[in-house]
């Protein structure tokens, strides 16, 4: 480690002298942030792990160690098995839909046209506005009686009022609804990520490829895609983490129903751990997110470090 010599030496109080050393000052400045994170993220995380192997509930806060029995009970519970499957369906369904819409939207916004700034501002809305507020607007649009979607379908003559779908009351439709709302919330984010990637590619690279005889598809898949891959991967990782662990959309739209058809890990952990007060089982359910988070973190590290190459 190279230590940097002080250019000016002058008599000063001892603390002052210490603060003039780069390593000491650096440590002092970074300490509050690290302490905050260690105390309120690191420690609670370890606590969550311990809860999951204990018999802790709100009514009986005992720290008795019970090994993996919580996990065994959870895995055998059919509700949990459905929840796990739902979580994957919810995550990958909405991310896929979001990416397709995002790529398409980015292609549109790449072109300059009058009013582009306003269009971009409107397209970014779903991602900017607090998701809980947007979700209640969707809940109102999916209303069993006054749904604007049903009204439109009825007036277009697609369906009749008697067989109008009950969006949030039918298990399959409810799953479709939470996926659509979540994709709706994330695709503007995908658009700006794609846009950031595409606009960062120097035009001369594209020109050079064109001169060398590369056509549209070849330019797209062999030049553009590899170049924007790191940035798209980082965006996708964010999307996966925040969808896989989401609670708000499901909580507000369907409350996990009808009959657990849309229950996801975050929601189930909340129901068991907070609403029912069974902290240990709730913690164990939440910890099932860890393997996915682990792979995601590895991917994140990989792509963050790639910028150095």
């Amino acid at each position, binding site marked *: 480690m190279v230590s940097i010599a002080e250019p000016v030496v002058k008599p000063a109080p001892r603390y002052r002298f210490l603060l003039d050393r780069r390593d000491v000052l650096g440590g002092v*400045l970074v300490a509050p942030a690290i302490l905050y994170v260690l105390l309120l993220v690191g420690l609670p995380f370890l606590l969550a792990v311990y809860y999951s192997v204990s018999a802790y509930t709100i009514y009986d806060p005992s720290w008795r160690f019970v090994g993996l029995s919580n996990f065994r009970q959870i895995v055998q519970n059919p509700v949990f098995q459905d929840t796990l499957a739902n979580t994957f369906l919810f995550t990958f369904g909405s991310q896929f839909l979001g990416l397709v819409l995002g790529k398409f939207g980015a292609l549109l916004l790449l072109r300059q046209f009058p009013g582009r700034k306003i269009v971009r501002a409107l397209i970014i809305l779903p991602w900017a506005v607090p998701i809980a507020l947007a979700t209640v607007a969707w809940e109102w649009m999916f209303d069993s009686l006054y749904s604007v979607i049903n009204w439109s379908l009825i007036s277009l003559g697609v369906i009749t009022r008697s067989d109008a779908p009950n969006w949030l009351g039918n298990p399959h439709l409810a799953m479709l609804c939470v996926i659509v709302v979540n994709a709706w919330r994330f695709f503007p984010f995908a658009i700006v990520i794609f846009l950031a990637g595409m606009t960062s590619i120097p035009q001369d690279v594209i020109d050079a490829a064109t001169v060398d005889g590369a056509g549209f598809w070849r330019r797209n898949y062999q030049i553009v895609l590899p170049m924007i891959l790191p940035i798209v991967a980082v965006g996708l990782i964010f999307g996966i983490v925040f969808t896989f662990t989401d609670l708000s959309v499901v909580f507000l739209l369907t409350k996990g129903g009808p009959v657990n058809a849309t229950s996801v890990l975050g929601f189930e952990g*909340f129901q068991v751990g907070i609403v029912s007060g069974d902290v240990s089982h709730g913690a164990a359910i939440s910890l099932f997110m860890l393997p996915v988070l682990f792979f995601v973190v590895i991917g994140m590290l990989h792509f963050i470090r790639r910028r150095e190459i």
Partner: protein
Amino acid sequence: MRRAVLNAASDGAFYGAVAIFVVLTAFPFYWMLITSLKSNPDLYNVANTPFWFNETPTLEHFRYLFEQTLFARWLLNSLIIGLCVVAITLAAAVPAGYSLARMTGRNGEALGIGIFLTYLVPPTLLFLPLSRVVASLGLQNSMWSLVLVYPTFTIPFCTWLLMGFFKAMPVEIEEAAIVDGCSLFGAFVRMVLPLSIPAILTVVIFTFTLTLQEFVYALTFISTSAQKPVTLGVATDLVRGDIFFWGEIMAGALIASIPVAIAYNLFLDRFISGITGGAVK
């Protein structure tokens, strides 16, 4: 001639596609607006055209919201929570971002990535232990629990954002100040901070919007109506029994959404470069 027709057709398709996207993203907000201005007999009649007013528009829902509900209190709570979290975040993240940016070798980088990764630890994993921590501090059912907990995601995010910014600032600025007789710390306070006002402003805006967007911790920790932040209050507190006050809910959602939407659009580009961490050079 044929070419001109083709061009017009492709332009038409292009603007058509743009229009579809705009309707897709903006319609729920139009829906909030129109619902909040409709009278109840207009709202709850399946025969009415829902897209426009069938009876005279009214501000009744807004009046009810401010006079008969705790909405104003929720707005105030959100403001207090946001300001406190901004203060805590700045106090921790500005020095940390600077320090990590100037650390020699790969240590700063590794530590920075470590802090940033904690941003990815989800609330739905931490809410159980944190709710016990909050309870043991006597903060359950109090908005101060959110002031304590929100910095756990704003500090990592803002440290990362500021680290990138400080890295781009030439180190010669501090060296010049030190040659002129400043201490190292003095150079940071007198030279670096004044030059960082734009970055700090970005961090202030984003911290504030992140606190407004948060829902999970607020839902977990707070059940007393008077302590709720606006997002939670509007989403959960305007339902009496089975009856949804749709006019009031949409009015409240609209009011709380507007400032966040404006802030995001103003600072979007900085946010993107921060979140991708310069993954593309």
